């Protein structure tokens, strides 16, 4: 477990990290680090170290490690970049053998906290229990980091706030990485006790007995029944309408009777990343005692082929009453979300409702792995989400929410069918499908995070594997909303 503290001056740890910028300007670190810095500059020249953001070069001096860290140009410095530098530094040194590191970058107290935040975000890995014995080369040696700050207690207070969100992201990643034999709809609910201990109240609905028939249809092939989990964080007055976050939580998606090809099917244990992000965001809000009312709605089911499974062609009446012909049992995410959205809209009168789902392969074709798809008819909500994504390095791109493709969802047997077999824009179809279950007047946005919930390669804030995408974004949206309330007239348009 990584421990980060803030200190007024470097102690004399076995490692000292100093920051360098292109051009070689040196920060003022006072006498304590001045010698190290001068030495660092000399070494940097010798090793043609440029000081570009993300560069890390550890050099063994006579008595300790001197770690040169590129900070990039001062005029470009901001929170996002400092987080990346922090995360990158931790990743570089985690298994280096260095146990204790002092970091003297000459940052102000709030900047120092952002640097630490990046380290916390990067310092996540799957629980050790998944391996019977640890690989000694992969054990993290780095366990204590002391960051020099002119006001250590201010830095610490800021980090406490940010660490709540990092904990939310870590919690979401733990859920995403959990294999399907460990994480079922029921065990997902069991693991929500972490949230209830922080003052979140939890209601669990059985799909079959509450008229959540689409959710039931998706989960009925599994031996573990589907559930709708409702998480309530009440941080503001009773009369304040809540922000509602809805997450797709398919704990394993085989595709059902329309079973998927076998290659990479194991990745489908992560098809609950939307629900994990929602739970993680609620956890973060509770940990930081956020002054907002928020509801998390998790649509939990396991999509399995079996004698009880839904068949292609089955027609099911949704919670909202709209009937759906399920022509592809592997287009199941939109089904569970449809019931969850309709239920949440009816029950909570949301100020805004945002759903997150690893919904389509099409969105990966469209936007790849750098931006998630954003679908909304509400321009103000779109702007807020885009801005929150920019600020948190969880980037979105708006895609069309349009009735132009309604023919694709026409069914001969029911009000709607759940997808189109043609080689068309399935992410757009899915978004439009969901819109049918959101009442007019509700400010709603849908985030298709299929390309973003897991990273294929190491990045500065997350290693290869689950990213916790959405936790920081939703937390930022809640914070933004508390600081700048919704303007009048928001949440009106719909196509």
């Amino acid at each position, binding site marked *: 477990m990584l421990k980060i503290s803030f200190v007024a001056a470097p102690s004399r740890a076995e490692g000292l990290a100093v920051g360098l910028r292109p051009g070689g300007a040196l920060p003022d670190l006072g006498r304590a680090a001045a010698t190290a810095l001068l030495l660092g500059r000399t070494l940097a020249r010798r090793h043609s170290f440029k000081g570009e953001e993300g560069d890390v070069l550890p050099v063994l001096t006579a008595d300790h490690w001197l770690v040169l860290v590129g900070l990039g140009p001062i005029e470009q410095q901001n929170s996002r970049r400092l987080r990346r530098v922090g995360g990158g530094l931790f990743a570089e040194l985690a298994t280096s053998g260095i146990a204790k590191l002092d970091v003297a970058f000459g940052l102000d107290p709030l900047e120092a906290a952002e640097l630490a935040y990046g380290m916390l975000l990067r310092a996540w890995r799957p629980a050790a229990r998944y391996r019977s014995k640890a690989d000694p080369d992969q054990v993290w040696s780095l366990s204590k980091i002391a960051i020099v700050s002119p006001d250590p207690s201010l830095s610490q207070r800021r980090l406490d706030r940010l660490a709540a969100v990092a904990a939310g992201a870590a919690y979401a990643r733990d859920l995403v990485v959990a294999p399907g034999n460990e994480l079922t709809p029921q065990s997902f609910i069991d693991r929500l006790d972490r949230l209830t201990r922080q003052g979140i109240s939890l209601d669990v609905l059985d799909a079959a007995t509450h008229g959540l028939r689409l959710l039931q249809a998706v989960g009925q092939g599994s031996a573990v029944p589907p559930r709708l989990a409702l998480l309530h964080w009440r941080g503001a007055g009773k009369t304040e309408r809540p922000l509602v976050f809805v997450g797709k939580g398919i704990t394993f998606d085989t595709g059902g009777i329309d079973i998927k090809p076998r290659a990479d099917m194991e990745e489908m244990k992560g098809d609950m990343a939307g629900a994990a992000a929602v739970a993680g965001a609620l956890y973060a809000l509770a940990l930081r005692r956020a002054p907002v009312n928020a509801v998390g709605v998790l649509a939990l089911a396991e999509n399995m082929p079996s004698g009880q499974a839904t068949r292609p062609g089955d027609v099911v009446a949704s919670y909202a009453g709209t009937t759906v012909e399920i022509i592809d049992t592997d287009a199941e995410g939109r089904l569970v979300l449809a019931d969850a959205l309709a239920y949440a809209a009816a029950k909570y009168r949301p100020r805004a409702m945002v759903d997150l789902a690893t919904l389509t392969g*099409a969105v990966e074709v469209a936007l790849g792995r750098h931006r998630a798809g954003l679908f909304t008819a509400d321009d103000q909500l779109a702007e807020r989400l885009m801005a929150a994504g920019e600020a948190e390095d969880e980037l979105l791109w708006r895609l069309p929410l349009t009735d132009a493709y309604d023919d694709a969802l026409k069914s001969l047997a029911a009000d709607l069918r759940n997808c189109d077999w043609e080689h068309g824009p399935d992410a757009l179809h899915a978004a439009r499908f969901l819109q049918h279950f959101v009442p007019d007047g509700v400010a709603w946005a849908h985030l298709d995070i299929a390309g973003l919930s897991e990273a294929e390669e190491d990045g500065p804030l997350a290693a290869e594997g689950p990213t916790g995408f959405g936790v920081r974004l939703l937390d930022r949206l809640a914070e933004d909303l508390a600081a700048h309330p919704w303007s009048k007239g928001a949440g009106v348009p719909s196509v």
Partner: protein
Amino acid sequence: MKISFAKAALPTEGALAVGILEGRVLTATAGQIDHKTGGLIARALAASRFEGKKDQTLLLLAPAGLTVQRLLLIGLGKPDSVDGLAAEAYGGTAVAQLQAAGDQLLTIAVDPIGGSPLAPAEFAAHAAAGARLRSYRFDKYRTKEKKEDKPSLKKVVLSLDESGEAKRRFARLDGIIDGVFMTRDLASEPANVIFPTSLAEQAKTLAEQGVDVEVLGEKQMRKLGMGALLGVGQGSARESQLVVMRWMGAEDQDAVPVAFVGKGVTFDSGGISIKPAGGMEDMKWDMGGSAVVIGLMKALALRNAKVNAVGIIGLVENMPSGTAQRPGDVVTTMSGQTVEVINTDAEGRLVLADAMWYTQDRFKPQVMIDLATLTGAIIISLGDHYAGLFCNDDGLADKLVAAGKGVGELLWRMPIDDPYDKQLKSDIADMKNVGGREGGSITAAMFLKRFVKDTKWAHLDIAGVTWAKKDGAVTPKGATAFGVRLLDRLVADNYEQK
């Protein structure tokens, strides 16, 4: 089909189309007919579900009290929504319904509509444009079409009081439609008829309209170092071509031009990375971008646009053969950058890379817009309702989106962020020509971006919108010529001397 304008008068023969506003509100001509026939229209409305909404029609055969053969009621929607596009849909719908009904004459009534942003003359001009656009057929290869399947309509008359003014306004749109039809013809022609040299010949016919046309062959392109374009064409028996079209309509002949660049793969078999057989015949229209540029140049010339515009099209045929380019080949582009050709079926970007570089090198345009049926990924991203817009300048992007809305050819902006560029890293060359399945249209745009100098540039990926699978209001099934009207509007609104 001949289009004319005449003073308002009820016709005595043929078919007659009249508009009804939403809520069953009769236009003046409809009211006149209703009065004359003792309530024919009122009875028809009462006996049907027709309410005058957009897209609704009601056809009355041998209407009692009139001598016309057919009376077609067309819903116009709400008065304030009757804009140019609605007027085009009105004319287009009339032709779609009556083109092969048996009548030779169609009269389309145009009445003043209170609350509409359009004056009657403008409405009539757009309705005429819609009628003509919708009448398009590509039937030259049908030798045995049954008489009843052939269009009967010979003459369309728009009837309104301001017929003279309407005729003048239509003349301008008529030239643009000539361009649209040329584009549709070229895209519809099979690949044994349209290949690089024959397409270049077609472009040369624009000389009649005052467009200066130059054609570069393989020898000249080799001299210029266009290794990427030539590599794509080297498997074909047909010689690759680069066509340069110049319309110098600005008063100042030295005014900096706007440039349009088109992908012209006259047939794309995929090359050695050959495509699956199903649907491969569609690849005859993989020259859709170049056809749009030709049609656009024709439109600008015909309406005498006051702009200097250059159109550059790279024409190649992508075939597998003993001389074809192999996956893994490295080619050097005109820019000097090298490309590892991982997939010979990602060929459009190779053609555009050299064509775009040449365009900037020679003409230093104020803006450069390329059009290409570039990726299948754009169809999975945006479907057939929007073309993908990739642009390095927000101002230009806004202008393009606005022009598209104006003519009903919609664009949706897509990202071109640096992180996507990484997917193009090659093990042995400056870049590879494919970036994988994820973000496939974006990485194609990122590839092109590497061949953009300091130029304001937009790339339109029109793979999803170039060929319509079903009839639209003003576009019959088939080649749409998406882009001609959009770019004509862009020029008219932003780059012409007033």
